[in-house]
């Protein structure tokens, strides 16, 4: 009996030692969610970073879960409601303020100077604090062919001297009149959803209007439906009414229309640049947005990394993000999937964005012209309202009425949310 008890104690003691030993060595697992399920290249690069990070220290181990982009935001929202958020969250730039406001995200605490060299569009600010950082940014430009512009006597604009609004419009008319193209300009109506506010609101801003009054973030009245906005709407509508741009378009036409030579100019992003480059080589030009008086601007901010407010290991999550922000990883993502690296030093390491690289201009566009979509939780609704207004106006709706309706929707939503934390 005695010996039996002793034996049991001995076994227990050994087990305790074992367990203690394991817990002293075993690093803590941090969960991370990513939006890019299905993209093999993206996955390989990200897993490479995680592997390097796991090997570089012994406190943390990152475990990755991937979601399809289309249902990613809903998954995060559902997880937040259920209290199951991962430690590290991947978040789309314009969505971030909403999640920060809702308390899903905690501000980042990165080593000082980490973000010094970063493109402004890759840094997600809310309430004067950094909540998210991107390894890359995206930019849009007017895709054009040098030979086409020269043959029609159209000036080739530069970053310092973009087309003026009249110049751009005249160029479209000229190109349409050649009869060589189905449409002079393809703004990309097929890409419903976020493309509309991302790609079309910079044109609105160039007219001197905006999506919301950025001095208060409390109303869009007189900004999205003021004179400048109506001027944009009239021009926007006329693009389609004059047959300069395709109104209903399917995704395939959007993808191949410019490359097949059916569209003379195309408003498109850096992610589509390589395919066009393959088709046209040196003849291809990426031109800055036309300047309608308020400057030549494009949208900014892509997917970024943030830390969940409910995470018990925010220090570990921050450590991973700081680790992932190294130039070599920025360059790897850029080379892998064509994105604009977030720092100039990383850009220098890439194939396409290095000085003299084929897509160098996109880095400059991002650096010089990018305007963030309004960093407010109201953006989710602003985007919907603007998308509907842009589509309705293109379809021939009364410009003032369509913009008024968008303003109503936006203002009602802001009011229903007590100002989203703005205006006290």
């Amino acid at each position, binding site marked *: 009996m005695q010996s039996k008890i002793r034996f049991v104690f001995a076994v227990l003691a050994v087990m305790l030692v074992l367990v203690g030993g394991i817990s002293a060595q075993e690093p803590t697992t941090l969960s991370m969610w990513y939006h890019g399920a299905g993209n093999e290249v993206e996955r390989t690069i990200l897993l490479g970073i995680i592997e390097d990070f796991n090997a570089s220290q012994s406190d943390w181990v990152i475990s990755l879960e991937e979601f399809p982009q289309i249902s990613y935001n809903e998954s995060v929202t559902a997880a937040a409601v259920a209290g199951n958020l991962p430690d590290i969250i991947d978040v789309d730039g314009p969505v971030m303020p909403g999640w920060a*406001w809702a308390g899903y995200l905690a501000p980042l605490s990165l080593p000082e100077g980490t973000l010094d060299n970063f493109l402004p569009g890759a840094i997600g600010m809310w309430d004067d604090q950094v909540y998210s950082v991107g390894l890359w940014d995206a930019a849009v430009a007017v895709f054009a062919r040098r030979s086409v512009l020269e043959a029609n006597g159209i000036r080739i604009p530069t970053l310092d001297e973009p087309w003026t609004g009249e110049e751009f419009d005249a160029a479209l008319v000229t190109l349409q009149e050649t009869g060589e193209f189905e449409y002079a300009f393809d703004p990309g109506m097929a890409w419903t959803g976020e493309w509309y506010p991302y790609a079309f609101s910079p044109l609105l801003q160039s007219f001197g209007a905006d999506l919301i009054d950025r001095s208060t973030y409390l109303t869009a009245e007189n900004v999205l439906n003021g004179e400048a906005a109506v001027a944009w709407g009239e021009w926007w509508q006329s693009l389609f009414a004059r047959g300069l741009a395709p109104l209903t378009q399917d995704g395939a036409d959007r993808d191949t229309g410019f490359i097949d030579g059916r569209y003379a100019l195309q408003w498109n992003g850096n992610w589509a640049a390589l395919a066009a480059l393959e088709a046209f080589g040196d003849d291809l030009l990426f031109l800055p947005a036309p300047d309608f008086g308020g400057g030549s601007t494009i949208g900014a901010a892509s997917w970024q990394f943030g830390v969940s407010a409910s995470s018990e290991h925010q220090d570990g999550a921050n450590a991973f993000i700081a680790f992932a922000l190294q130039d070599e990883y920025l360059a790897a993502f850029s080379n892998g999937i064509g994105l604009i690296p977030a720092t100039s030093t990383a850009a220098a390491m890439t194939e396409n964005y290095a000085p003299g690289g084929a897509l160098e201009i996109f880095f400059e566009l991002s650096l010089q012209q990018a305007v963030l979509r309004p960093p407010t939780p109201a953006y989710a*609704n602003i985007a919907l309202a603007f998308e509907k207004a842009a589509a*309705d106006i293109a379809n021939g709706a009364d410009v003032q009425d369509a913009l008024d309706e968008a303003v109503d929707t936006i203002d009602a*939503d802001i009011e229903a949310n007590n100002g989203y934390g703005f205006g006290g």
Partner: protein
Amino acid sequence: MSSLNTADRLTTGVKQHENIVGWLMAAPALVLLTVFLIIPFLMAFIFSFTNQRLISPNPTQFVGTRNFTDLLTLRVFSIDPILDENGELVLDDAGNPTYPRLREFTRNNPDYPELDGLQELTSWSSGNQRVFLLSSDVVFIRALINTIIFVLVIVPCQGGLALVLALLINQKLRGINLFRTIFFMPVVVSMVVVALLWRFIYDGDNGLLNTLLGFFTFGALQPVDWLGDPYTAFPALMVMSIWQAVGFHMVIWLAGLQNIPESLYEAAGLDGANTWQKFRFVTWPGLRSTMIFVLVIITMQAFGLFTQVDVMTRGGPLDATQSIMYQAVQRGYQAQDISGGSAISVIFFFLVLFVSMIQRYLTREKSA
């Protein structure tokens, strides 16, 4: 006496036992119905009286019926024409009276607090005045009207076409099963896939429909942008919806047809009834319960119009294809306004309930 009591007790015991077994057997279905239908509906009902958001740190508050008044308020308002200093009408280039902008009255105007936030649904001229029908939510009203039109068109067309098809394939011909399969096939395909395919068919430049029409009219008919034109988008959606689900109802009608005893037709034949009379006095009465079933099912499915809109048009162009369900989802998730989406769902529920009750009343057994 005592033996009777025992027998009584025995039957009560058996009955109780049967009761328990009955409930047990119903339990899986009851649990599922409660979890996935009853509780969500009760939650939607409660949310519709609050300001619940999908994402928000603000506490949820009860707001009474505000969500419903924000959707359903209608008002008529007349505006007097602009007069110059002499009291004369100021005319525009076409010689019509001019009016101040409606928005001057409906936004931030302390003189007209009751009009605040209202939008123009439609307007017309009455004398020199301009009369406006104002609504607190024009898009929702469009969605409501569209959905009702959709039901009014779909129910008779889909039900009728399904019956015609059922009569056609209810014949003993060689290879009739082939036709049955062909007509039924669209039902098996997911609506999302069907909608995507029909988007190609309706394509404005080189879609199948335009190509066919061009071919048969020898190019006289210019290509129509079926889904891009506010006038054709909704009818195009309807045609496609009818095509997709007609096979299902055809099968139901077919089952009803095959339940009618052959002897009735023989008897009618002996009485000298012609084909139409056989249909009118034998087939149609025999299909009565089938008819009620088909009617109710199509009505409910038609009210739930969503997938086609989401995939093919997203409510556009110019709100021509908005539907109640699309708006409920759009607001609840996209616009992150759970309370607004819930309020639409509640309205939707009572609308469908109301219509179903009317149908029930109209198709009741009149023998009593």
